[in-house]
C-alpha cells in the first residue's frame, strides 16, 4: 500500500485554477520526486496536501483520508513539511527551532531526538545557541530539514531545498536525506526544479507541467527519456 496517495487533486488561487486533477503516490520507504519548471504548480501540490490551499480531490495518508485537514494536524499524523524558503524562525536559536519541530508530536524523548539530529547535522550542534537568522543559507536548509526530522515523521515533504544553495551544499544535504531515508525509514516526497540532482536521489519520479502530471516512472527511466534529457537535464 502506498504511504501517500493523491487522486484528482485540484486547487485554485482566487479565480485561477492551478492544479488540474493531479495524481501521484509515494511508496513506503521510498524517495519520490516531483519535477517541473518554475510555475508548474509543484509547490502548490505540496501545499495542497498540507491543507494550506483550498483544494478538491482525494488525499490519503496510510490509507486514511486527510484532505481538508488543518495544517496544524499534520505533524501529529506523521507528516513533516519543510517549506520553500526554509521557514526557519530567524529570531530564535537553532536549538529552539529544533525543539519547536517536536512540539506537535505527543510524547516525550525530545532529548534523544536532538541527539540524533545533531549526529546527522554536526554543524547545527556547533551552532545550537546561535540565532537561526545568523546561519548561512545551507545551514538554514539543514536546520529546516532537521526541524522536520524532530517530529519523527513517517513522511518528509521537501519543497525546493536546493533553491539558492551552492551545488556542493545541495549534494551534502541530499546525501544526508538519503541516509535518513535508509536509517530512519522516513519516506520522502521531494519537489525540485533541479532535475539532475533530484533524479540522482529519487527512486520514483513525476514530471509536472502547468498543473498537470505529464510523465511518471522510475527515476532511471526519466533520466534516460529523450525529452526529459533535452529539456530538463540539458543534454
Amino acid at each position, binding site marked *: 500500500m502506498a504511504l501517500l496517495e493523491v487522486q484528482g487533486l485540484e486547487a485554485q488561487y482566487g479565480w485561477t485554477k492551478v492544479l488540474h486533477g493531479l495524481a501521484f503516490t509515494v511508496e513506503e520507504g521510498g524517495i519520490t520526486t516531483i519535477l517541473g519548471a518554475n510555475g508548474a504548480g509543484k509547490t502548490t501540490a505540496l501545499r495542497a496536501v498540507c491543507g*494550506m490551499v483550498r483544494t478538491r480531490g482525494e488525499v490519503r495518508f496510510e490509507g486514511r483520508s486527510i484532505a481538508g485537514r488543518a495544517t496544524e*494536524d499534520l505533524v501529529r499524523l506523521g507528516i*513533516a513539511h519543510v*517549506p520553500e524558503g526554509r*521557514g526557519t*524562525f530567524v529570531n*530564535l536559536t537553532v536549538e*529552539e527551532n529544533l525543539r519547536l519541530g517536536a512540539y506537535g508530536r505527543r510524547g516525550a524523548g525530545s532529548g534523544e531526538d536532538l541527539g540524533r539530529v545533531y549526529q546527522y547535522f554536526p554543524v547545527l550542534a556547533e551552532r545550537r545557541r546561535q540565532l537561526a537568522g545568523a546561519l548561512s543559507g545551507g545551514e538554514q536548509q539543514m536546520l529546516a530539514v532537521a526541524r522536520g526530522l524532530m*517530529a519523527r515523521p513517517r513522511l518528509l515533504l521537501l519543497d525546493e531545498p536546493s533553491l539558492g544553495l551552492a551545488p556542493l551544499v545541495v549534494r551534502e544535504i541530499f546525501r544526508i536525506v538519503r541516509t535518513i531515508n535508509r536509517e530512519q525509514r522516513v519516506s520522502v516526497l521531494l519537489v525540485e526544479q533541479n532535475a539532475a540532482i533530484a533524479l540522482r536521489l529519487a527512486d520514483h519520479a513525476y514530471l509536472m507541467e502547468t498543473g498537470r502530471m505529464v510523465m511518471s516512472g522510475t527515476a532511471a527511466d526519466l533520466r534516460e527519456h529523450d525529452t526529459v534529457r533535452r529539456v530538463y537535464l540539458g543534454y
Partner: protein
Amino acid sequence: MDILLQQIVSGLATGGIYGSVALALVMIYQATDVVNYAQGEMAMFSTYLAWTLLNAGLPYWVAFGATLVISFVGGLLIERIVIRPVEGAPVLTIVIVCIGLLVILNSIAGWIYSYIQKPFPSPFPSRPIQIGNIYFGAHDLGALGVTLVVLAGLYVFFRFTTLGLAMRAAAQNPVSSRLCGIRVGWMLAIGWGLAALVGAVAGMMVAPVVFLDPNMMAGILIYAFASATLGGFTSPGGAVLGGLIVGVIENLAGTYVHFIGTELKLTVALALILVVLLVRPSGLFGRAAIHRV
C-alpha cells in the same frame, strides 16, 4: 538627596505600572501588528471586578488572584470571540474593533458602577517604611515589588517553557508554526489573556492612588504609549524599561520643575513621544524595521 531618592522610588513605582501596560501593548502588537487601544479599559474593568470581589468579603490576596484568573480568561475569550472574526482583515479594521471594545467596556463600567470615584484598598500598610534614613511609601515599594514579580514570571514563562516558546514562534512566523503543529489561533488567544492579566495587575496597583473610576486608565494608557515608544514597540523588555524611565522622569519633572503642574505633566509625556519619534522612531531597544524590497 533623601527627597530625590524618595521621588525616584515613587517614580519607579508608577513607572512599573506604565511599563506593565506598555508590555501588554507590545505583546499584542508583536503578535498581531495591532495596538490594542482597549488595553486600558480592560485593565479598568478587571479592577472593578476586583472591587466587586473585595466588597463581597473576600480577603485581598484571594480577590487579587481570582481577578488575575478571571482577567486571563476574559482576555482569551475576547480574542477568540471578538477579534477572531476580523483576524485577516486590514489593520485599520482591527483598530476600529479595538476602539469599539474600548467604548463598550468604558460604557458598561460606567453603567454598572457609576462614574462616582470609589476608593480601592491597598494591601500594603499606610505607614511609610524606613530604609536607612529615608522614608518610602509602603504602597510604592509594594506596587513596584508586585509588578516586578509578575514581569519576572512572564519572562521565565516565555524564555524557559515550551508553551512560551511556541507563543514566541507563533508571533514571529505563523506559517512555520502551523507546520510544527502549533495552534496559532490559540497562541494568540493566550497572548491576549496574559496581556489582560498584566493589565489587571497594573490596574489594581494604581487604583489605590488615583481612585477607581471608569476613566482612570485613560491617562495611564497615554503614558504606556510613551513608554512603549521610548523602549521600542518591538521590545518587551524595552517597554518595561521605558515605563520605569517615563515614571521617574514624570515624577522628577513634576517635583523639581516648577511650572509643570499636573496639567502640563501630560504634555511632558507627549513631548517625549514626539522627541523619540523624531530622533529614533524604533525606540531605545527596538529594532528598526527592515524593508525587504
